[in-house]
């Protein structure tokens, strides 16, 4: 390998590792987005159930 190729390899390694890091963060973002959507779906389901049957809704704490 020539010295120029070593220099290119050093800068390339930094670029690739930062790119891999960004890809991992992007994958995590997709997972968080999926989990948020699932929670939203769950919340909507509960809201719909509460409208149909108010008794099944979460009971507010009662004073004794």
């Amino acid at each position, binding site marked *: 390998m020539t*010295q*120029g190729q*070593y*220099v290119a*390899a*050093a*800068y390339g*390694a*930094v670029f690739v*590792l*930062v790119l891999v*890091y960004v890809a991992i*963060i992007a994958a*995590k*973002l997709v997972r*968080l987005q999926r*989990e*948020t959507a699932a*929670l939203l779906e*769950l*919340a909507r389901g*509960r809201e719909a159930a509460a409208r149909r049957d108010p008794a099944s809704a979460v009971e507010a704490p009662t004073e004794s």
Partner: protein
Amino acid sequence: MIRSLPGLAAFAAGLMGLAVVLALIVAPEDADQGISQRVFYIHVPIALTAYFCFGLGAWKALLLLWRGDERYDLESYVAIHQGTIFGALTLITGSIWAKASWGHWWLWSENQLVLFLTLFLFYCAYFMLRFSLEEGPRRARSSAVYALFGVVLIPVSFLAIRLAEGLIHPTVFTRGGPQMSGSIFATFCVGWAAVTLLAYVLYRVELAGKRVDTDLRELRELFE
């Protein structure tokens, strides 16, 4: 002043681009090492950033033990994670530069290299400790104490090259100031600023991701 994360990320990307152009095209070629000296502009800023991240992780760990605020646990963890990423990059770029300049990928006789590897492995073991304990205040405190112990290695690693004699690894920052010409020093400073800003952006992105992850986990537990 830019404060938003997208703005900072765009600025960091632009500064990195400028730093690469300056390092590979504008900066004059070194009379001694030739073109391989251009690795200096990326290797040294990355190494200094790794030290800074480990130091930040230890500082946040100290704040956790001092004030007892749990948010410092996550901040310390993320800073150390960034430190290991930049530490790995330091070892990779350093090995490539060593091969190009000295003809060896690694020299065990070089105290600077061995001490940096020790520091890197010490903080790699931090994750083994952290993930072997159950989440909670005990894990936070144990991780913080471990992170604080590691910070002792930073000045040792940094000063090793100045205390030892007969080394191949060059010393460019001495008591007499930086041993380089004005244009080389300016290129180095731009590179250092770019890498530090990049590390800060990655730190903020990872921290935001971890916080959202924690909030979602709590929300899921509330629904169940």
